[in-house]
């Protein structure tokens, strides 16, 4: 892999989009951002894990798992990665580190598994030993489906050490999102070893799968747990309109496909209802769709003016989006890096407050995935007195 350092200082014009639930707010403290391409030439990168020692692990949907140093140099191609079903939206998906990774080197991968007629969103646990995975163990498989789209596949640990996994509804199976006997279209909660926690909300519900944490999801491809508050945020692709950010709470029904702000690609309604009694409204929705991928809440000292804001990787509209939250309410939105033609897949916050963004591809070019590092521009940082 070639490594390119491109330094570019981008002063962002105050380009704000009014979303249906947002109002225009204060835009006078925009930081200037230094964008560094840590790695490029990646083949549809999907997940990113920042290791405690500064190294990074990045997944490619085509099945590759790479260990990079802090500067983005590829140290190793990880061996013994479980084979994924790579087709359309399927493949190797997310990666998450065990909360005690620094002592047990344990990590988790999500991937599409199976074949066209019978495939699942699978989660495996493994130990990173040098440049290989050891003790690879399947800890979760969702309900099989016969489509190779809408896998969900994001992973995030809750503060109690349990693991949340998002699953898509498989498109043709959209009504499964409302069925408690199916794991399609859910966020599930499992223990780090794959067993089901005894305090899961549907553990005693007859006919319900005990792993379900929340339901009524379409294709949630972003998931973030705010360690400071324990709040869980998830993004979800809508159809034509109706992309969402949801605050995830246990036992909650998020509506799909009975309640949605989107309509079908055919121009028909998904449902007569945009809202429905007993189903949770999103924190924010986008119509027309923008194609939201990963999500993270900014917590760090590098961009103090963004503290507590959400950053959303946007695939369809090709930008990184800042959602300004004030007391849990959306007050503003801003498009970042919208001049790069980059399909943003995932976003992570480094321990020093820098922002790592995974770009699935630039334009439609194959093998054009990138790993970007966003830091505050030195000049303007000193100018702003920070």
């Amino acid at each position: 892999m070639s490594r390119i350092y491109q330094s570019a200082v981008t002063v962002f014009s105050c380009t704000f989009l009014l979303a249906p639930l947002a109002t225009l707010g204060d835009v006078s403290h925009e930081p200037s951002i230094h964008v560094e391409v840590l790695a490029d030439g990646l083949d549809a990168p999907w997940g990113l894990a920042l290791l405690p020692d500064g190294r990074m692990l990045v997944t490619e949907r085509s099945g590759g798992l790479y260990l990079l140093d802090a500067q983005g140099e590829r140290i190793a191609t990880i061996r013994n990665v479980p084979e994924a079903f790579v087709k359309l939206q399927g493949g190797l998906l997310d990666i998450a580190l065990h909360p005690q990774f620094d002592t047990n080197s344990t990590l988790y991968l999500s991937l599409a598994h199976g074949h066209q007629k019978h495939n699942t969103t699978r989660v495996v646990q493994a130990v990173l030993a040098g440049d290989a995975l050891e003790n690879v163990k399947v800890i979760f498989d969702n309900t099989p489906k016969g489509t190779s789209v809408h896998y969900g596949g994001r992973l995030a640990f809750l503060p109690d050490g349990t693991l949340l996994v998002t699953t898509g509804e498989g498109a043709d199976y959209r009504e499964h999102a409302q069925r408690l006997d199916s794991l399609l279209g859910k966020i599930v909660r499992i223990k780090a070893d794959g067993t089901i926690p005894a305090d899961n909300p549907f553990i005693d519900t007859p006919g319900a799968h005990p792993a379900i944490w929340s339901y009524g999801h379409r294709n949630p491809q972003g998931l973030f747990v705010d360690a400071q508050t324990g709040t869980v945020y998830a993004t979800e692709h809508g159809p034509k309109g109706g992309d969402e950010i949801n605050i995830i709470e246990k036992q909650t029904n998020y509506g799909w496909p009975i309640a949605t702000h989107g309509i079908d690609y055919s121009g028909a309604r998904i449902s007569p209802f945009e809202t429905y009694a007993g189903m949770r409204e999103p924190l924010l929705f986008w119509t027309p769709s923008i194609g939201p991928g990963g999500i993270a809440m900014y917590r760090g000292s590098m961009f103090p003016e963004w503290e507590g804001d959400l950053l959303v990787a946007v695939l369809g509209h090709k930008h990184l989006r800042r959602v300004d939250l004030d007391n849990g309410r959306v007050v503003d939105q801003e498009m970042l890096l919208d001049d790069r033609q980059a399909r943003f897949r995932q976003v992570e916050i480094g321990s020093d407050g820098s922002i790592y963004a995974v770009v699935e591809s630039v334009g439609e070019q194959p093998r054009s995935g990138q790993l970007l590092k966003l830091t505050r521009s030195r000049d303007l940082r000193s100018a702003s007195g920070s």
Partner: protein
Amino acid sequence: MERDRLFRVTLAYLLAAAAGYAVASIFFTSANLIRLSAVGAEISFADALRTFLFDMRGMAPSMVWTQYGSLIFIGFAIAFPVAAYLRRVVLRSTGPIRKIAPYLFPIAGATAIAVILLTSYPKYEVFMFAGARGTFGSLAQCLAGALAGYVFHLTLNKREARS
């Protein structure tokens, strides 16, 4: 004379395609609403009516050729002339094959819808038209196509149909 014939055939085609699209749209919406009801949605008559009308308009033929309504009109525009040619060939014959003549337009209409559904499937390998999901959903759409073919057959006068 020739102009009159062209006018009658065009009118028959438009009437048949419109009827076929309307029925296909109603079947489409019904299939979706039935599936939603099965997972707990309580849908009133007013909700359903609103959805039928929205879908009828939302999928209607337009300048966008990939729209379901556009595809239906295009599909019939190809299928009915082919059926008319086959009908002429069949009616010229003297064997028992003549008996299939009345069914050729309905078969052509159903085939047109089947081809639309089959050719729209491969890109993402999902049903692009969700109301056609499953065997019954697809068969209902094909039935709408057959109905359109029957309307075309009825609308053309006997002389036209045999010519």
